[in-house]
């Protein structure tokens, strides 16, 4: 089987590009890490890739708000090219800051009525501070190419702005109807999550959303940080699998991109 080409797009302040590329490589993709600047003049170079990943970090320091400056830089030429690629079946993934960027760029949730406008935001955590901790996710959609409905898996979060807020209730209703609410935080028993299992205080525990095609996914937690046998905090108990559960998300992407 041929390895699909994946792009990890970085810019000033991106900082999860290496481990994201590593997870993609382990999952079977052929990965390039490239600076956004390389695409501003020639966005058609994006077409070489079947998977485009916006990794985590603090692009431009989260100044103004997370993802804003990156989103502004992409606006004129890169975002329109990405829209064309998505309609041609390319996969796009935004992790943490990457999720925030996709939302500012209007690529998520991109509900049927969005017209390309920004419909949601990732607002500051209700605690008012940055937090890093391991949480549990449940897949709540069967529409997403990256995910398998009903699965739960553990991954870390690390962010200060992770509360998914829609512009109005109609956006949420459309998202629900289209199966776009992709991932939610659950507690240790798999039930509705309260803080700290829901670290940001995000409504309904929404941790990740996809677009109506299911081929664009954004999530606040970091699946690339649960890839190896020694990543999960419980590995010393001897009860965790030999491969981190976050890897399946990347494997699914590679499979769907082939």
């Amino acid at each position, binding site marked *: 089987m041929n390895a699909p080409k994946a792009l990890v797009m970085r810019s*000033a*302040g991106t*900082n*999860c590009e*290496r*481990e994201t590329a*590593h997870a993609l490589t*382990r999952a079977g993709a052929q990965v390039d890490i490239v*600076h956004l*600047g*390389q695409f501003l003049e020639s966005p058609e170079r994006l077409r070489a890739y079947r998977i485009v990943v916006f990794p*985590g*970090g*603090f692009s*431009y*320091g*989260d*100044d*103004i*708000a997370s993802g*804003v*400056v990156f989103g*502004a*830089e992409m*606006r*004129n030429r890169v975002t329109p090219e990405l829209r064309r690629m998505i309609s041609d079946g390319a996969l796009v993934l935004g992790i943490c800051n990457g999720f925030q960027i996709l939302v500012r760029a209007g690529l998520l949730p991109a509900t049927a009525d969005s017209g390309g*406008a*920004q*419909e*949601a*935001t990732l*607002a*500051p955590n*209700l*605690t*008012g*501070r*940055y*937090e*890093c*901790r*391991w949480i549990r996710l449940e897949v709540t959609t069967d529409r997403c190419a990256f995910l398998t409905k009903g699965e739960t898996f553990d991954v*870390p979060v*690390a962010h200060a702005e992770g509360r998914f*807020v*829609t*512009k109005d209730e109609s956006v949420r209703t459309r998202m629900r109807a289209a199966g776009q609410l992709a991932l939610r935080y659950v507690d240790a028993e798999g039930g509705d999550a309260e803080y700290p299992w829901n670290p940001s205080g995000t409504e309904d525990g929404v941790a990740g959303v996809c677009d109506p095609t299911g081929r664009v996914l954004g999530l606040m937690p*970091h699946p*690339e*940080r649960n890839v*190896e*046998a*020694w*990543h999960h*905090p*419980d*590995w*010393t*108990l*001897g009860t965790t699998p030999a491969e981190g559960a976050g890897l399946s998300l990347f494997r699914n992407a590679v499979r769907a991109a082939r």
Partner: protein
Amino acid sequence: MRTPPPRARPALVRPKVDHRGARPDSLGLDRTFVQVSVRDGLRDPDSEKALRALAESLPVVSVRFVQGYVLEGLSQESAGRRAADEVIGDPVTQIWSVDGIPGGVPADATVVSVLRRPGVMDPVEASVKRALAAVGLPVESVRTVRRYVVRGSRGRIAEADLVAVARERLANEAIEEIHAGVEFDTRPVHPAKYRFQRTDVPLRAASDDDLVRISKERTLSLSLLEMRAIQSFFKDAGREPSDAELETLAQTWSEHCKHKTLAGEVRFTGQGGPRTYKNLLKETVFAATKTINRPDCLSVFVDNAGVIAFDEKHGVCMKVETHNHPSAIEPYGGAGTGIGGVIRDVLGTGLGARPFLNTDVFCFAPPDTPDEKVPKGCLHPARLMHGVVEGVRDYGNRMGIPTASGGLFFDPRYVGNPIVFCGTLGIIPRELVKKAARPGDRIIVIGGRTGRDGIHGATFSSVELHEESETVSAGAVQIGNPIEEKMVLDALLRARDEGLLHGLTDCGAGGLSSAVGEMGAETGAVVELAHVPLKYPGLSYSEIWISEAQERMVLAVPHANVARLRVLCAEERVEVTDLGEFTDDGHLRLTYGGEPVADLPMEFIHDGLPRTPRNAEFTPPAPKPFPWSDASHDLGKDLRAILSSWNVCSKEWVIRQYDHEVQAGSAVKPLVGRKRDGPGDACVMTPIPGNPRGVAVSSGMNPRLGDLSPYDMAANAVDEALRNLCAVGANPRRAAILDNFSWGNCSKPDRLGSLVLAAEALRDVAVAYGTPFVSGKDSLNNEYMVDGRSIVIPPTLLVSAFCVVDDVRKCVTMDLKEAGNLLFVVGVTRDEMGGSHFGFVRGADGGAAPRVRTDEGLAAFDSLHAAISAGLVRACHDLSEGGLAVTLAEMAFAGCRGVDASLVQVPFEESGDGGVRDEILLFSESPSRFVCEVRERDAAAFAAALRGVPHARVGHVTTSDRVVVRGLRGAPAIDEPIDRLREAFVAPLRNG
């Protein structure tokens, strides 16, 4: 915890930001004031945080936080609106306006605004400019403003009252200005251009008094002896020095850069008899490394950071820095640039190392210090702690370097002088460890622009703080821009991998002066200072030369590689400037616009410093027995009191604010166990993605022992750092260690005396354990002068340790794993209650300091490491503050398992006058001890591995929810529910 109400404080003088004839708004450009706020009905953590801060001192009912951006250079109103609509405002959650506070200001509200003082770095400016340029709205300048619309619960709050509280709670006047009212002057200040004029300082005819005055007036921090050496040099040269020459010498000869005390002659009297060291550091710490002579040490004490072998292809390096004085004045910026600086140290090691871990250790006065105990001119310790934690958090997280190792210590004597240790580890290809600038190489500076920030940082850190430091030293405050530094990192590692560099160092204390002076020490250098790119005009050549503006690196690049470097840096959007050339004439020559402003032989710069012998003395306090009382005590209560003491209690509030998972390398995390609340002994990171080879990192420190016995304090710090490594499964024999001294003013013999003893202990214990020092740093003026009285910090020695682990999958954590497993104590307990936490919570003073017996320690480390490597240990935790009782409690609540143990078998050796008692076995802090959880079926193999090392089976893990420890008489000495112990541990700093 609650922070106390604001204190009266001395009137603040504006910092000395000299604009040299600046005229406000001299550019005559239009300004747009975009103001953004969260929509009504949505929660806004920023407003809530401000409300909490203000409500402690004022009758406040609500606060609306407004973020403002003063954009200069958008000529049409429509352009201003577009900037707000298309870039700055968030259509989902925010409202905004370009002509007033969005949502208006209620009649009963008071408005206060906070903005950076002119010339103070604001990293947001660059990002906003970039975003606006991307949508076709280029602006000349951006100033950010934080505004608070405050409504009182009992009527309108007076502006003066609000400003007084905002000063304490919402702003720091060292870097920010506060304005009351809706309207205020938003005009940016644009300094006028600098007009060159060479300044010479008349020195040759100066009297001794003049020399002292010149040193003080120019903040040179040079002694009379040193000033005389400079005077005599210029008498011989037949001319007066330029200000740039004087500054060059002051920076290079500063305590911060030269370590003249530790590297100087010391005559000691007191404990152990009189002795003299020609070079204290060389004869203790360096000597240990030389004696040990371990072949895996690739680079020690010659570079920014020490390097040891990681695998056949890579080396691993570590550096720990102090950033105490800047953090005392401006905790957020000071601590942020502390971590930023040590990251650059690692980045500048060899031809460039990739940072993969940050560490931090802080010391403050207790956060509940009563207001009246905080001397004037000092920030309250709770505020200092919050600022320092946020500074390190924001810098480290933005750089994408995990922070997973550290500590917090509290003592009232840190009240005027907090201690901020920041460390970084990096990984580097082995063939790139060596470097040297060669004659003909270009001198290239990359990264941030140069401004007035941080001028005199090196010399400022070499003097004592005093009550006016906050005003006179504001120029020494630095503000970091981590995104700039991340860009530099990306560019630099690419340049390294393409082989473009001959030499490399960071711009730290002393700025270009130190960096170029150091790189060109063996060659010589010519530098054109007018080429240095500036943040704003108006800097004189000597300000350019010594500015400590952050995020800059100096490179030695062969002529042929410069063009490629420029292309690569352009791709990374990093500015590149060619400043001059390394020469072969051994001189440092500076020009400004072609005019010579300095010409000094490197030899005089680096070797001209006259040595001042210093006297040191130390008389140990008279031995005092521990004051045991015969009254019966609830030892469970003592245990909970220790768990709740500031030094022992959970630091989760800090740890969770740091990203310890970025780079996906953490194999043993800072908090471990089923509920992720157990304090791990050491963190273990894998620096190469997918490769199970790791590095374990730990630290050891116990200032409580410093007053009692500096020698034992230092010995225990090394032992603690190494036993922490051993506890996670690393082999201490492969560890390397670092020393960081933070001491009082060492020109005073008693301060220096305790330091000599500590240095001797470091030498002795390091040699015995075979663990070389590979890097170190000292900060020797940590005193605070107020009302003619000096508050001296306790002698504070941090020992950091790191160690390569072949396979992280063999590591263990400290949480109990399975009920039924056996519990062993390894190592000997003695009656060593001096400086113990038991004594601390009992308010009892006395007892002997714990003594490190390196033969016992080494045997325990070797055997235990073998047992862990063989997979015989399910959990392991060292014994430190609070002794066996605290260790068992922490293992129990971390594992959510009970303990049933007895003290009867605990290995004990009589060393003092008294006999054994439950309290000693439970709470003595004797070193080199561990508790291990072992499966029953492995017990025999474990015992065989531990043969020859005192150890004993003391109990087992239970399914119950209690920790039960039976005393010597059989009855439970401790019987506590684990939830209660956990709560004691977690409560004090739960919310910072």
